[in-house]
């Protein structure tokens, strides 16, 4: 029986395993050094905030794996011998495979800052990171002040987490406005205000210079590059993005760049070895997508696709229309299609914002063809299926605006803003 070994028990590897089991009787082993069972990484924040216990993060009950004959192996793969198709573990044992799937995910970026390896300095990615957070920032007595470096999705989540335990937070963001490398300016500014409303000390255009140690090798303070200001703190969160977690592969014959290089079939340079999820790097970008997509949904989609290939239905990874979502403190965000921070050539933005500064939408469209290209929506839930259909049908912006109600996904009895948005769109057209 063919033995498929998957390194990593995140969403990509587990999705692949589940679908392989649905399609075949192959022997499946999932290897992890992080946890025994699959859990939702994106929800680690809720454990720290006390919304859930770690047990609640497991999407499948513990009996699920045995019932579906998916073997779970605890261990850390040290090297891959691709000739003999053997994995060598740091624990000393080995395992052979017929097909290997690398889904080792990401690790937090560090940029060689002085003091970046001190105690109390960490990213937020793994279960171990969360355990360390409980040691260095369990409450506002042990951690009187925290500094977060890096204004992305994990940074703002960490700010929300620390805030939930009344730990004062200084939030250093390199950009001139929060996440404005991704979001249009008005949206980014709305979030700046929202962050400050939660009593976060948001410092824009601020970089970390260095982290200073106390006599015990624990963080004592940080210094800001631009101003030279020293901020004393007991905890530093480094949330300046993630990169593929593939150090153990660098030594092998498998071709890597930043991530494990794969073609559209998710095959690496070595036959019978595949890579999916955060650790995979496409040789050529697919559409507007980055070559490394460190997103829950794309990991899952790669898993769904690769399972087909491994079970005899060879398939290219062909993601559909881009979508994503996040939550910034109390404001939910969803995006469908592409909205760039600045409209691309021959594109324009239509922007609507509610006066309470907690809801807004931005649509990008082509000014020549009027084709609707994408939407960012804050504080108003929208239907994935409807936007996916509109994008496939290449609907024009007028159609989308006038049918917006069909896409609304807010709970019943919520106030609707379609009329307001439509009126605002009309006004925009008149001024152009």
């Amino acid at each position, binding site marked *: 029986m063919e033995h498929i070994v998957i390194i990593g028990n995140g969403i990509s590897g587990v999705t692949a395993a589940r679908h392989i089991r649905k399609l075949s009787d192959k022997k499946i082993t999932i290897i992890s050094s992080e946890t025994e069972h699959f859990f939702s990484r994106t929800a680690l924040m809720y454990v720290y905030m006390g919304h859930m216990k*770690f047990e609640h993060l497991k999407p499948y009950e513990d009996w699920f794996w045995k019932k579906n004959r998916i073997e779970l192996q605890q261990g850390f793969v040290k090297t891959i011998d691709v000739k003999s198709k053997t994995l060598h573990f740091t624990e000393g044992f080995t395992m052979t495979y017929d097909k290997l799937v690398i889904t080792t995910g990401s690790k937090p970026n560090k940029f060689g800052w002085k003091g970046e390896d001190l105690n109390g300095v960490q990213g937020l990615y793994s279960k171990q990171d969360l355990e360390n957070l409980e*040691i260095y920032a369990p409450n506002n007595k042990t951690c009187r002040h925290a500094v977060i470096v890096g204004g992305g999705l994990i940074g703002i989540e960490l700010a929300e987490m620390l805030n939930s335990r009344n730990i004062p937070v200084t939030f250093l963001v390199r950009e001139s406005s929060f996440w404005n490398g991704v979001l249009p300016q008005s949206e980014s500014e709305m979030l700046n205000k929202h962050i400050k409303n939660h009593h976060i000390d948001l410092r824009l255009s601020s970089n970390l210079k260095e982290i200073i140690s106390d006599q015990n090798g624990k963080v004592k303070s940080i210094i800001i590059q631009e101003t030279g200001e020293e901020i004393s703190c007991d905890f530093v969160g480094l949330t300046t993005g993630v990169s593929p977690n593939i150090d153990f592969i660098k030594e092998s014959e498998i071709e890597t760049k930043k991530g494990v290089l794969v073609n559209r079939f998710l095959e690496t340079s070595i036959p019978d070895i595949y890579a999916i999820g955060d650790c995979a790097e496409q040789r050529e970008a697919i559409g507007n997508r980055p070559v490394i997509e460190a997103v829950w*949904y794309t990991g899952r989609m790669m898993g769904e696709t690769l399972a087909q290939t491994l079970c005899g239905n060879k398939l290219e990874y062909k993601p*559909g229309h881009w979508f994503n979502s996040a939550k910034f403190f*109390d404001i939910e965000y969803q995006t469908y299609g592409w909205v760039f921070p600045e409209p691309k050539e021959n594109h324009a933005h239509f922007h609507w914002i509610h006066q309470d500064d907690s809801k807004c939408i931005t649509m990008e469209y082509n000014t020549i063809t009027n084709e609707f290209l994408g939407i960012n929506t804050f504080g108003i839930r929208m239907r994935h299926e409807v936007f996916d259909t509109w994008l496939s049908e290449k609907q024009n912006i007028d159609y989308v605006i006038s049918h917006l109600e069909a896409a609304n996904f807010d*709970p019943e009895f919520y106030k609707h803003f379609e009329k307001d948005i439509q009126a605002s769109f009309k006004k925009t057209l008149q001024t152009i």
Partner: protein
Amino acid sequence: MSTKLNFSLSLAKPDQDLSTKQKVAVGLGAIGLFILFLAFLNIDFPNRVLFLSAALGLITIGTIVFANSAYLKKTEGIKNDGVWFKSISSRGILGWITGIILTAFYIVLYFYPQYLGLGMDGAANTGLISLFDPLSQLLSGRPASQWFVYGTFYTLAILIFGYKFLLKYRHNRYEQIRTGSVMFFQLAFAFLIPEFMYRLNSGLPYYDLKNIWPLNYYLFDEWSVKSFLSSGNIGLALLLFGIASIFIITPILTYKYGKRWYCSWVCGCGGLAETAGDSFRQLSDKSLKAWRLERWLVHTVLVFSVVMTIATVYTYLGYDSNDFWLTKGVFISLAIAFLSLVFLLTMIFKRDALGKDAKYGAIGYFITIALLLILYFTGTTHEVFFITSGNLRSAYGFYIGSIFSGVVGTGFYPIFGNRVWCRFGCPMAAILGFQQRLLSKFRITTNGGQCISCGNCSTYCEMGIDVRAYAQKGENIVRSSCVGCGICSAVCPRGVLKLENDSMKGRINPTEILLGNDVDLMDLINQK
């Protein structure tokens, strides 16, 4: 490595200290409770009106001040910070103490009302119950009973914790309107109207119009039916309304809106669970085992209550059709015919929707019919199933009405969650659930591929539905137990869930590949 480590219980626990304002609020509420406790110890207050008002007033003010302090200063949004760190809401010591006190209260209430001061054999009330005499006199013109005291506590709890809930979810209009609805129905229909009705017509039995058979399991008891019939046209109208409620009104509303129209908008048990019980919703068991137990238990209770009700009516019907057309024989035949019709229609039109459950449905049906036949061939006016009918009735009232719905259902809130009764024991919920599953426009829609499997929805589902299991497959949630409280949708951080009433077509939509992937692949796999 150890994965058994439970790091929400790490060495240094996060602070969950109360603010000064909250401490004062707790103090006020405690004084109010203390007055009630003194009354319970049979201290006779000189001015009952004053002390009763003070007790209830202080409890109310304490809760309002506490809730204001907890929510009003914070921004609008989900407020579940620290739920699993707080002793009361995570089966900690406070949770257990609360559970034990509540359980003890229910035991005294149901079985030893004299300890609460109920005057036996016409004697005047003493103790706690006598403290409530002035209020009862004001409303219905009679002294209080243990049920009046309980009803007052119950209504007060729904109102003050409803207020707390309204503040907690002040960003969510669905929750606001729904909570307003349960508060209204409790205050008006369960508490005030029956008291006023007694004033107008003292022959009528206590009748909460929204309390529908089989939840209202004594509606068709002989004494109940007799007192309706002896109360003139209004009594007859009420009895007919009771019958119409279950056979006509309920199916129509459930078809249009799902069982939520009742369970989380109208019902008193649901009302208490959604308000006073809100802090315990995360304690419900989400395992597959619990789901299995739930289905066996709740449907067994349903079969039991259907058979019990038929048996009860059977005992007081006559044998001779010359006296009254509805004889024992006609009645049993009608009951069997009705159940068979429901069974056949379900099997003919909804066989696919039932799937593997069809077998269990059939077992339930045949057991019910067999019991009714045994009833017919062995039952007499005094005995059913070879047991004195009165004993069987009181056993049902005892085990289901008292132990299950009261002692376990509410007393164990802080241990098993706030919907234990609704989930495992309520026969009304079972009937509505059956309709919701097979013949309703209601579902919880999953938003394409947006789920991140975080687990908030499952954790905060009071009915123990593993909502995430559906959401992460991109599948709509169509479950008989869902009471439509809307909290899964509220706590979802990615806008994945929406309660809605839409067409029956495409309501149940199992998918293999989620939205967002290759269109050809989705077609290939999902349309198969």
